[in-house]
């Protein structure tokens, strides 16, 4: 029995030691930079732009060291939340503007994980269109480095070859769909198998139909004074369905992925795709230098003057309230928000700087978006002002069911209202 006890004690010590080793210390995935390096975490979509920005920053600041960790979007959302709640998050982190996302500004700042950036030199220069999604309780919590937009990205080379022009009104758009069909082309490629793609047509139509005529709509919804079902969202979803019925989209959009939809446009089989500006570099890469693209608003009425675009804070960063290297983190974020930082970031990412400036050379494909930004004719992405991520998911599901003929716009909007009313 003496031997038995010795083995028991040894076993317990070994197990405890092993378990302790597994759980001790701060997480190594971006939590500890060591040697005074400022740690940054972002989604892998940001890699080209952030790498370029970090290289330029380190060159301009020889004493500074920035250590970046990237993760795919889903993985980033789960990792960063765990790191924030366990106190091992990096000094600077990619944060989604507004709300409606697991790592959105409202969520992270609401839980007290973000540093107040209201006193930074750039905070007051943020444009009015972006302020609602960068601020909470009157304070600025994120640095919106880029400005992005949603519209129809046209393959202008294919458009010219087919002898067609970009539609400026809703009637022209329906005619454009019919003309494309006659030419044996798809007017707008739709990869609705990828859930997030389903929302883009709604987001391209509602600025003109909902938020343009009633700029207070998002606030009215927040106050409980408006609903999706009793708004022009109904008209937007009706038009979405009409586009499908009139043959504007490819056959079987529900079986087509985001990647396939881009390939169709890059090859010229489809003339356009309703997408975010980040699709432009992806299309250029596939199509080569001989093919040109243009991001334009998707018309929703017959008066071009009424047309608006969804344009919003894109790539945004927050500073961890418990950052180990807070001064270095704030300096880096300030630099990102300088004209030099924003322009470099936007040029690499095919976006626009969030604070317009003369030094920026705009990508020719984005001149219309830039004009709309400067004229204040853009509205934030709709989900950025929704109280939880369920509304967006309800929208994805509803659109897929609409395209599959399994629901009606009225029922889709009723479910989005239900999700909205669940609150934060």
């Amino acid at each position, binding site marked *: 029995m003496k031997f*038995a006890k010795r*083995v*028991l004690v*040894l*076993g*317990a010590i*070994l*197990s*405890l030691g*092993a*378990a302790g080793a*597994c759980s001790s210390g701060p997480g190594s995935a971006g939590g500890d930079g060591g040697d005074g390096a400022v740690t940054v975490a972002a989604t892998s979509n940001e890699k080209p732009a952030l790498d370029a920005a970090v290289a330029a920053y380190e060159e301009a600041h020889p004493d500074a060291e920035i250590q970046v960790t990237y993760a795919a979007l*889903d993985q980033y*959302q*789960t990792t960063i*939340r765990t790191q*924030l*709640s366990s106190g091992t998050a990096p000094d600077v982190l990619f944060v989604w503007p507004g709300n409606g996302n*697991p790592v959105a500004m409202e*969520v*992270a700042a*609401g*839980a*007290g*994980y973000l540093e107040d950036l209201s006193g930074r030199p750039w905070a007051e220069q943020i444009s009015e269109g972006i302020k609602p999604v960068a601020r909470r309780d009157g304070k600025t919590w994120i640095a919106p480095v880029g400005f992005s937009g949603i519209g129809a990205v046209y393959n202008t080379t294919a458009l010219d070859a087919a002898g067609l022009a970009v539609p400026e009104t809703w009637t022209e758009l329906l005619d454009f769909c019919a003309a494309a069909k006659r030419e044996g082309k798809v007017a707008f490629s739709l990869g*609705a*198998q*990828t*859930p997030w793609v389903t929302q883009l047509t709604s987001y391209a139509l509602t600025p003109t139909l909902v938020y343009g005529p009633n700029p207070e709509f998002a606030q009215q919804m927040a106050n409980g004074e408006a609903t999706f079902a009793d708004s022009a969202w109904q008209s937007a979803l009706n038009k979405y369905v009409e586009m499908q019925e009139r043959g504007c989209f*490819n*056959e*079987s*959009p*529900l*079986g*087509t*992925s985001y990647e*396939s939809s881009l390939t169709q446009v890059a090859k010229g089989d489809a003339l356009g795709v309703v997408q975010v500006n980040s699709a432009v570099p992806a299309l250029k890469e596939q199509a080569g230098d001989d093919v040109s693209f243009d991001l334009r608003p998707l018309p929703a009425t017959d008066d071009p003057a009424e047309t608006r675009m969804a344009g919003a804070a894109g790539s945004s960063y927050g500073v961890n309230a418990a950052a180990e290297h807070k001064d270095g983190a704030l300096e880096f974020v300030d630099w990102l928000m300088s004209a030099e930082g924003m322009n470099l970031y936007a040029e690499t990412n095919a976006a626009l700087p969030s604070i317009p400036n003369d030094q920026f050379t705009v990508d020719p494909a984005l001149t219309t978006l830039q004009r709309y930004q400067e004229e204040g004719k853009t509205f934030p992405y709709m989900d950025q002002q929704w109280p*939880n*991520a*369920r509304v967006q*998911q309800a929208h*994805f*599901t*509803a659109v*897929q*069911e609409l*395209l*599959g003929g*399994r*629901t009606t716009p009225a029922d889709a909007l009723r479910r989005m209202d239900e999700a909205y009313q669940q609150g934060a």
Partner: protein
Amino acid sequence: MVRNAVTPAVEAAAPAEGAGPGRTRQVRRRPSHARRAPWFFVVPAALFYAFIVLWPSLQGARYAFTNWDGLSRASEFVGVDQFVRLFDDPAATGAIWHTLLIAAGVTIIQNLIGLLLALGVHTRIKSRNVLRVLLFAPAIITPVATGYLWQYLLAPDGAVNGLLELVGLGAWRQNWLGDPAIALWCIVGVVVWQFAGYSMVIFLAGLQGVPEAVLEASTIDGAGRFRRFWHIIRPELAPAITINLMLSIIGGLKLFDQVWVMTQGGPGNATDTMSTLIYKNAFQFNDFGYGVAMALVLTLFVAVLSGAQYKALGRQKGAS
């Protein structure tokens, strides 16, 4: 000659002939010896398991009784509200139904095909070893890669529709993953494609234990193929059937990777399973407590179904 049908590898794995009675005596003696084995031998492993599996799992399970959002520092105790909510939520009940359909579909089809493949390659045909490797090969591919591969093949302009067109069956072209009525069964098909070879290998191991002498005797006595299978091979395969059914039902119940890659639960909610819904709630909807409640229900499902199946098959084996 019949023995030649067994490959050298099979012979090496099969019990040596003539060792029967001696082995039986040894096996009979073992239990009394086993009872005297020092119980504390299991302590290090048990403690290790408790610290890295049981303790964290119990720690996590308590969130099912809270409304924690996965990020905030505070949460409230809400009792069994999350479980009540689960059975009132059409998305959750739909996901439970899809999960059961997938588990049943995968379990039945995968094992039937696995068994047929095993019987097919447990013969003297020359290419049997190559066939075994080829049929098992999909099982070593990561499920995520398989998902992407089949998403590509099943696209409206993908290879599957292209092939149907080529052989004159253009009318059979489908919007495979985009049609809510068939998307779920496409996922079942992909899982079966990937893991039927895995089931086959386990059945093959079981087939090696079937006494050749009894098979020969039954053939001489005039037993046909089906009677030989049903009365001689099937009872001997009982352990392989048990393990195969158990693995496939558990795999079917917790299926995530292929669904996530191929459809993310869509179109609509047509292919949402409990696992995808757990992920969405816990990590996308900031509803961690609800996600954990679902995970507990899934754990219960797996435990009850696999336990019931184990008992049923155990009884069947005893009876045979």
